[in-house]
């Protein structure tokens, strides 16, 4: 089987799973402030995991693209430790708070610059703005077959076969490559990366290329902002929690009474 070239789009975001107490909203600056480390958006890690599995099965090369005003290569080097061959940062002051279409257009610019590819994988949605658009728009811009919500991806003689989630179960679909696929968590978590491997990758002398808007051939006018008109805190969800105490047996008894009262 011929080797395949996979491009994974991975966004760096503030940890979306940070405890609620570490998250606040600055309504004036219209920013969500997260007091937690930056991470790779979770579904993008899922996408990377399938990419690495495919590479193990059929051989090939994985390039990771990450776009932002400034992207931290310490966060993104994890993708190299996990099995990606190449990491390219797309950095430009004009890449701040881009709307989905502009993000996709800039990613498309980078992908065209790379030129040779069989599969483009994105997460189903990024964990910061929960938009769920960039993948499919990217597919449209590049005029590729688009497959969303993949839970399993296999390569069968030059085509890609995907199990995609649908409301009543799943659908098996097939497309010629190159194709764009948005990945859902059912594909499984990103593999465990040992500390030594991680540290080695961090300390690695390897330099990570960074491409600007100009390098990608996208003009400033093509880069539009998200258009945030206001940002506020959500309504308080808190309730007064009554703790049920005692030995496990007593707790179980009291809890059973709670259920009984709710019948």
């Amino acid at each position, binding site marked *: 089987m011929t080797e395949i070239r996979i491009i994974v789009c991975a966004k760096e975001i503030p940890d979306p799973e940070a405890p609620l107490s570490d998250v606040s909203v600055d309504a004036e600056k219209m920013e969500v402030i*997260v007091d937690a480390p930056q991470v790779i958006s979770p579904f993008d890690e899922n996408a990377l995991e399938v990419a690495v599995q495919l590479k193990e099965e059929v051989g090939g090369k994985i390039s990771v693209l990450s776009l932002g005003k400034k992207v931290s290569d310490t966060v993104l080097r994890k993708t190299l430790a996990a099995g990606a061959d190449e990491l390219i940062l797309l950095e430009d002051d004009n890449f701040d708070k881009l709307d989905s279409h502009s993000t996709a257009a800039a990613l498309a610019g980078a992908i065209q610059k790379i030129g040779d590819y069989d599969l483009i994988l994105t997460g189903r949605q990024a964990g910061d703005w929960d938009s769920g658009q960039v993948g499919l728009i990217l597919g449209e811009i590049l005029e590729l077959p688009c497959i969303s919500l993949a839970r399993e991806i296999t390569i069968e003689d030059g085509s890609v076969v995907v199990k995609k989630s649908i409301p*009543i179960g799943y659908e*098996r679909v097939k497309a010629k490559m190159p194709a764009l696929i948005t990945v859902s968590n*059912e594909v499984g978590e990103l593999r465990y990366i040992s500390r030594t491997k991680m540290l080695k990758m961090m300390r690695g002398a390897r330099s990570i290329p960074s491409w600007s808007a100009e390098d990608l051939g996208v003009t400033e006018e093509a880069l539009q902002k998200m258009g945030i008109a206001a940002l506020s805190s959500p309504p308080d969800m808190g309730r007064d*929690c009554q*703790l*049920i105490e005692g030995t*496990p047996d007593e707790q179980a008894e009291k809890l059973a009474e709670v259920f009984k009262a709710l019948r």
Partner: protein
Amino acid sequence: MSDVLILGEVKEGSLDLKTLELLGAGKKLAGELGGKFSLLLMGDSVSGAADEALPYGPAKVYKLEHALLQGFKADLWVTSLEQACQEINPKILLMSHSFIGMELGPRLACRLNSRLTTDCIDLSIDPEDGLLLRTKPVSGGNAISVFKCQGEPQLATVRGKVFTPVETSDGSGEIVDIKADIDESIIKVASLEVVKEDIVSLDKANVVVSGGAGLGEEDGFELLEELREALSKSFGNVMIGCSRVAVDKGWISSDHQVGLTGTMISPDIYVAVGISGAIQHLVGMVQAKKIIAINTDPGCNMFKVADYGVIEDYEEIIPALIEKLEELS
């Protein structure tokens, strides 16, 4: 020309509930614009649903029927919808934040060079410039953002259960047939098979017993299943839910997942076992009437939104609870 267009969805020949909610939203926006709202129905046969829609008061029900629109093939649907938008030329197009809307929305936005906001929980018209204000939870639900974007039609997908379904009114609208110019050559993604799975309809549950990473292993769900059976003796429709991590670990299928990218539910009772209460999970269950949390970590978020909390290892509590429930019933 129609001011607000709703893309309806048809289930087993009838309008689905989300479509009635969208019509409610569309009617409100049309009122703010001083204009009209209409409905677009697509499929191989949507005549019954079109008749059903008229009494709800849309100015027009556009009926786009084509044999190739049987089942949902995104390539064909997005091209048909694009053509319909060019013909109808709406100022605003609303879709459900459903499987169909999530796929069509971004692709349509790209083709029409417009901007889409997904998963909106409120919509209104800015009186100053007449543009659509799109309110959407972001950062999992940690913040609420209002967006205003360029491009027409202004596009939004709308979350279920936030708008009140439209009521019937005069119903003097008309049904208009429109055509799609599509053929099989548009299809880039071929369907090999559709596999129906045994899917739980979590939104129909009265009680949900939900497990997360804290179960530690797949077998934990067997214990939850026993609890589910015990509770079924006292409650109707008791179902098993889970967090995303439980799905990631392969312990349970994703139709059980509660939350932002799973199912949003509001059962009478939600029992969270070994679930920390990340925001993306909370937004899916915080509307439950009563929340009971079992967790070893007194500081976990789930206790902040729960009515009752038990700080204990679930393996200690659940078997004892099952026993006590048996005694009570």
